[in-house]
Structure formats: structure tokens, C-alpha cells
């Protein structure tokens, strides 16, 4: 339906490089469902559990020993802010999953603090996702998911689970924390998949 808002002109703080419905910010807003977990790197661990129950584990030293990538990506939050050209350092999921035997279609990311989010496994591979531990050349702040978060920049930012502690692979799609609270199961910002049914 098309209605005009009487007297509204808008500031047009967007641009063609932004997905529909997003506005540009230079800040770095924080959105989390509970208190910020503060995880020491010596207690950090990342686990991948395959659909057969096999576990693969990395502690912080093992993560640091893996080849890291530095890269720049745009990020898009479902609350409508987008931030362009953010610079990160981390390990590609291609590297972490290289020796994991799986035919699973789906992954559930689990975080310290209990957060979860679901993704198709294909969206984590082929240079599309990372476990990142630096933002803008500095260790990742706890408010932004430090010491390490998942980063999947082509999906809305709630898929980039903060304080990530593992992935559970599965043949069937389950729904994560926000997905069960009314948000879209996939979350493509360019298709404006914000809420269930979009």
C-alpha cells in the first residue's frame, strides 16, 4: 500500500550500495539479548560437531596457529543500520571445516551465554564466513563478541554470532534464538528477509 507521510521529506542517509531499508552509520551499535559474557582466551574453545556426533576442537592457541585472513566487508543489521568497509582478521570457516567429514546441510552456531543462530552450511563455506578475533586492527571488544565471533557478512548481522563457541551440523534445519522469536530463518539483507515470512 502506498501512503505519503504528510510533511516528511527524509534525510536520504543511504546510498545505492546499501540493501533496501537500511541507513548508513559510522558508529558501531551493540545489540545483544543479555549481559556481555567475558570469556578469557585461555578458557575459550571452539567445537564443530558433525551430524554423526564427531567432535572437532580448537583452543585459542590452535586457532591462532591457523592461517588468518584480513579482509574488509560491509555489515548490515536487521535493525536497519549498515556499516561499510569494516576491517576484520580471523580464520576462514573453509580452513576450520577442511578436515570435518560431513554431508550436513545446516549448521547451528552456539555462543557462550546461550545464544544460537541457524545457517545453511553452504553459507559458511567458499570464503563467505570467518571466526574473527580482530576488528579494525584491535582485539575484538567483548561487547562486539570478543574474544571471537562468527562473521557472515552477506547475511543480517544477527547470524554473525558473538562469543561463538561452536557449530553443530545437522541434516535438518532447526531455528535459533532470534529465528524462534519472529525473525527470518535465512536473513538475506538484499531481499529484506527481516521477519518470518518475508
Amino acid at each position, binding site marked *: 500500500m502506498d501512503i*505519503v507521510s504528510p510533511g516528511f521529506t527524509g*534525510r536520504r542517509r543511504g546510498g545505492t550500495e546499501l540493501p533496501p531499508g537500511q541507513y548508513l552509520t559510522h558508529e558501531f551499535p551493540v545489540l545483544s539479548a543479555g*549481559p556481555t*559474557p567475558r570469556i578469557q582466551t585461555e578458557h575459550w574453545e571452539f567445537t564443530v560437531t558433525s551430524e554423526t556426533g564427531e567432535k572437532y576442537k580448537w583452543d585459542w592457541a590452535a586457532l591462532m596457529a591457523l592461517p588468518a585472513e584480513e579482509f574488509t566487508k560491509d555489515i548490515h543489521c536487521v535493525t536497519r543500520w549498515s556499516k561499510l568497509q569494516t576491517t576484520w582478521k580471523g580464520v576462514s570457516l573453509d580452513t576450520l571445516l577442511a578436515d570435518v567429514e560431513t554431508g550436513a546441510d545446516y549448521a547451528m552456531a552456539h555462543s557462550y551465554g546461550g545464544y544460537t543462530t541457524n545457517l545453511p552450511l553452504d553459507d559458511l563455506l567458499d570464503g563467505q564466513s570467518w571466526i574473527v578475533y580482530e576488528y579494525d586492527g584491535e582485539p575484538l571488544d567483548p*561487547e562486539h563478541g570478543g574474544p571471537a565471533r562468527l562473521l557472515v557478512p552477506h547475511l543480517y548481522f544477527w547470524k554473525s554470532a558473538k562469543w561463538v563457541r561452536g557449530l553443530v551440523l545437522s541434516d535438518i534445519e532447526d531455528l535459533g534464538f532470534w529465528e524462534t522469536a519472529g525473525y527470518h530463518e535465512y536473513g538475506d539483507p538484499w531481499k529484506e528477509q527481516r521477519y518470518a515470512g518475508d
Partner: protein
Amino acid sequence: MERTAIRRRLTWQVATVADVRRETETARTLVLEVPDWPGHVAGQHLDVRLTAPDGYRASRSYSIASAWSGSTIELTVEQVPDGEVSPYLVDVLKVGDPLEIRGPVGGWFVWKPEQDGPVQLIGGGSGVVPLRAMLRAHAGAGSTTPFRLLYSVRRPESVIYVSDLKELAASDDVDVRLVYTRDAPAGEPRVGRIDADVIAQYAFTPEDGATTYVCGPTPFVETVADLLVAAGHDPARVRTERFGPTGGPR
């Protein structure tokens, strides 16, 4: 983390502004008439969409300030400096105007009357808005669940819902405490932010089994949530909603 959710498609609806109320110099409550409103749970939010004559659109999310009571809902909007949507909602939109909305959204930062245990609400500034919906739902349901509100404001003139809060404070089931960070009214000697002492004095203890809802600007929520965890509260019983940037250099 429970699995709620009826996964139905949300559509844009045209609401009509039925009334407006000035709350503070920078905040206004919009009373909206929404003929097909499906109902909501206290604490949920909705999207507002504005369309310029040339088709340009801007949308933002706002917490719902009222408990569900038929086809009327209330939003309280605080004007964001240099904002694109909030100045329009606070200063331009008038009674009788249409407003496109979509919702309700969110199933985590919510309170339902059937929920177990006491409830601690902690709000900073306009973070009191979804908490007010919870207080209204509590009163509307005739719930005897103990509720406490700790509300951090700069000064007496910054208090949103003044008369409402006075009325609620008179109820035996709700304890309302205001914490002034800049200027306090006469007879209120303490000026300062919520700290460990305030939490210890006014909030439920970890043993009370309360669910705590914290809403406000990000630095406020970070500080309060950390204080709660440090005081021994189970992080799983602390629900947060934040707005704005970190306040840090980035």
C-alpha cells in the same frame, strides 16, 4: 531459551494518530488507532515506515509503550539528535495523520502475566518505554507478581510517564525508584548513576529468583548488566535491550 513463535507473515498496516501527549521536551507519546492490530506481548516493538512524496522511504523500530487493549497502541518516541525519523514523529506528525506500521516483533524482551517469579525492571532514559508496557500489562492483568522499577534519569524534567509512575507507585505490587544522574528534586539527596550500592539496596537479590529486564543506551545497559552479574545474578535471567552506539571511540 524457549521456543515460542507463531511464524506468520507480518504486513504493513495503516494506523491513524488518535492522540498525542508531550512527555518531556524531547519525547512524545503517539496514540495510534490500528483497526486490525493482532495484539502484542508487553515489551515487543514494531517498525514505523515514512514515505516522502517522491517515494523515498525510511523505517525504524520503536518499542510499544502500552499493554494490549484492543485496537489502540501507544508509542513513545525520544527525539534522536540528527535523527531522520524521530524528529518527524516527535514534532511533525499530528492527530488524524496516517502512519504505516508493521509488527509486533520480538519474543525475548517480553513479559507475560503467566510467567513465574518477580520482575525487576531497570530503565535508562527512554529505555523505560517497553518497561512501561510491562507495568501496564501487570496492572491490566491484576497480577500480584512483585514488580520493581529502577529508572535512571538525568533530572526531574526528563522523567517520562510522570503521572503514570506516581499512580503505579501507589500500588502495593509495584515499587518505583527513580535515580537522578544530574539534578535531583528537593528532598532527594542522592545524585549519581546506578551503582553496586543502588543495585544492592533496591533491586531483587539473586535469591529472589527474579527476571530482570534492562533497557537503555548501550553504555547504561552494559554497566547495569555487569553490575547484576557481579552481584551474583544468573546471566540467563537478565534480559537486555540496547539502543545507540557503544559510546566508545569506534
